[in-house]
């Protein structure tokens, strides 16, 4: 067989870059998480603190709240995008004029910078400046002020994320749907299966890898959301949209609490890894089970 050496050589540039720019900073952050270090404390130098920062996390109700609302946000966002994305992909499968044109338009939100997405939605939702408050009041009598109403703000961030990222799901689902083999489905129709049965027993299993992969990616990114929400609400009203990414940003930048910021970042990373690992294992396990069959 091929020499292992060539293989490692091909992999080397990737590993090298990831090591220098990924692992080295990570180690620095890890070490920092074991220190008390605030640039403007009475003693601004880093002091060894053992696991004190980690202990503090348990009592940090604000952080725990941020974790809770981030998980809630990720849940709403991922589920909505998967359902909507699948539905749109199905709509894209049939033949209609100007398909390519509409596909490009649909993919547009993916191209907008997150910070611009936040700015755009802010321009849409500021009363007196944007159309949404005005239209919602005129058509539905809703007093739409995301600076004052936590639930409205939360829902707006969800809608904003859906607008931004559903196209990724649509395109992935479309790719998967396009590569479905025809025979099993034709066979099932001949055998008299109805739509629901076909969907549940045929479509879903075939789509499983793509679905899990997409959920993985979206979940990973939803848990890290910062730019858009920061631009839109700054984390407000109060803590309603202060997701983990924003909370960490607040601790590290204005508050310059580097030690604690490092600790909560690593805890967040660990949380994300655990969640994603569970998904990944089920993806790989299924694949291997399939191969074994």
């Amino acid at each position, binding site marked *: 067989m091929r020499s292992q050496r060539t293989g490692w050589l091909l992999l080397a540039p990737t590993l090298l870059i990831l090591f220098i720019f990924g692992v080295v900073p990570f180690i620095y952050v890890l070490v920092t998480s074991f220190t008390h270090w605030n640039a403007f404390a009475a003693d601004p130098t880093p002091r060894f603190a053992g696991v004190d920062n980690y202990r503090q996390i348990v009592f940090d109700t604000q952080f725990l709240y941020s974790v809770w609302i981030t998980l809630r946000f990720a849940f709403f966002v991922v589920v909505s995008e998967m359902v909507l994305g699948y539905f749109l992909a199905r709509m894209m499968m049939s033949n209609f004029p100007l398909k390519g044109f509409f596909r490009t338009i649909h993919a547009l939100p993916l191209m907008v910078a997150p910070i611009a997405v936040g700015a755009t939605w802010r321009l849409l939702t500021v009363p007196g400046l944007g159309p949404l408050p005005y239209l919602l009041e005129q058509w539905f009598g809703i007093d739409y002020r995301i600076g004052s109403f936590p639930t409205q703000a939360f829902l707006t961030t969800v809608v904003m994320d859906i607008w931004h990222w559903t196209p990724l799901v649509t395109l992935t689902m479309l790719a998967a749907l396009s590569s479905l083999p025809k025979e099993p489905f034709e066979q099932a129709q001949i055998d008299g299966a109805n739509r629901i049965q076909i969907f549940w027993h045929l479509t879903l299993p075939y789509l499983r890898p793509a679905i899990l992969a997409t959920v993985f990616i979206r979940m990973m990114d939803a848990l890290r959301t910062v730019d858009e929400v920061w631009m839109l609400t700054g984390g407000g*009203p109060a803590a309603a949209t202060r997701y983990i990414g924003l909370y960490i940003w607040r601790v590290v930048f204005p508050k310059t609490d580097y030690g604690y910021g490092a600790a909560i970042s690593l805890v967040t990373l660990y949380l994300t890894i655990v969640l994603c690992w569970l998904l990944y294992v089920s993806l790989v396990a299924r694949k291997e089970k399939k191969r074994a069959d």
Partner: protein
Amino acid sequence: MHSHLLTRTALGAFALMAVTTFAHADFWSDAAKPYAGVTIRGVSESTPPSNYVKDVLAPAFTEATGIKVEFEATSWDQMYDKAIKDMEASTGIYDFVYIEQDIIYSYLARDFLVDITKTLADDPALKAPNFDIANFTSFINYFKDPTKSDDLFGVPMEAFVKVYLYRKDLFSDPEVQAAFKEKTGHDLAPATTHEQYREIAEFFTQWGKDKNIELWGTTVQAHSGHPSSWYEYFESVAPTFGVYNWGIDANNNYAASVANGGTMNGPKALAALEYYLGNLALAPPESTQSTWDEVAATFAAGRAAQGLVYGENSAWIATDASKSNVVGKVGVALPPLGEGVLAEAEAGKGYIGYYDGGAFGIPHSSKNKEAALLFLEYIGQPDVQADWAVAGARITHTATYDDPKVVAQDAKVDGYYTLMREKGPLFAGAPPYPFHAQVREATAPFFYEAIIGQITAQEALDKMAAAAEAELTQLGYRKN
């Protein structure tokens, strides 16, 4: 990006270059000889006064000295972050940094900055003949370090006061006056007390509803997720009720809560916060999403009859028709005050509002300190001040008040500069706290909860006081 301003000031700049290079050609080119060809780099906020430095003063300086200037103008958060990182790590990226008045104490505590007085004393060749600390307004005192015999650590480049703006046209409208008199029994005039302010705000909010126009009685800087709301309360509203220095007593182990000897959650603070929160009902709907930018925009759009607005905005709101709908309709006055507050301010025991501004300073880590110092002296010259004032509504030299261009603009902004000159000493900058940003971040979450009504004003104050004390203890300032 500020094209029309630039054409106006470009002429000024040419005149400036001619004057300075001719009159002091000897000094600038001589002093800069050892440093010619050097490039200095600075970071500042992207505001009109800073942009003026970038677009006009820096090129003029390069022309006069041969020292190149790379000026990075960026957002408020980014500027702080990068400057602090650079100075902390001593990476020597920046040769001069913007120092907002409230952060100078943190920088001095960390000994980040070069002692300008000492440097000029040690190397007389660097001292420009027309650079004199005595030329500056009292604002410069904020940048002196009392622990180092009042040596100077920053050269002021902008200063403003946050004032009370009101719609002169509405206040002098006979129909409005009559309706007001009928409703309240006395004449309509700019408020001098909080009760009057509230009364006027209620009147105009109702007026807007009755006439079906987009007008409310007051602006409130109440963004429920951005520190600007916190600032309006602690820096502009609370002092007018007699709560100074955030209610923290630095001479009493940094106590914040009444129980420990502070005033953050005392009766005056409660009155102040309830007043601030009560104004929300009389403010336009975008108030809970308004930072300092949006408050200015709201007032400039004509949506509010009164408001507390930062000084640097007053100028363009009153004069720039491309950005403002209320040109020529703006009145300027002192903020409404509680009983006894003015007396306390005049006695030097308190203050009535916020004296905002910033300076440029030189980090120790800079590799081109002398060249940077020359630049700071250049922008601190008397000759450049007037045009700069007109461009950015900022005054740092006493003589600038008398310059004809400034006097002309003063008339257009209802005497803002006169007010700043005469009543400026009654205002104060941020308290001398090196833990400024840290305590702000620790207390802000409760403040935001009060804004949206999740907790009452008293609860918010109690929680803020507790959080402030906890943070101060953790940082090591407050001893147990």
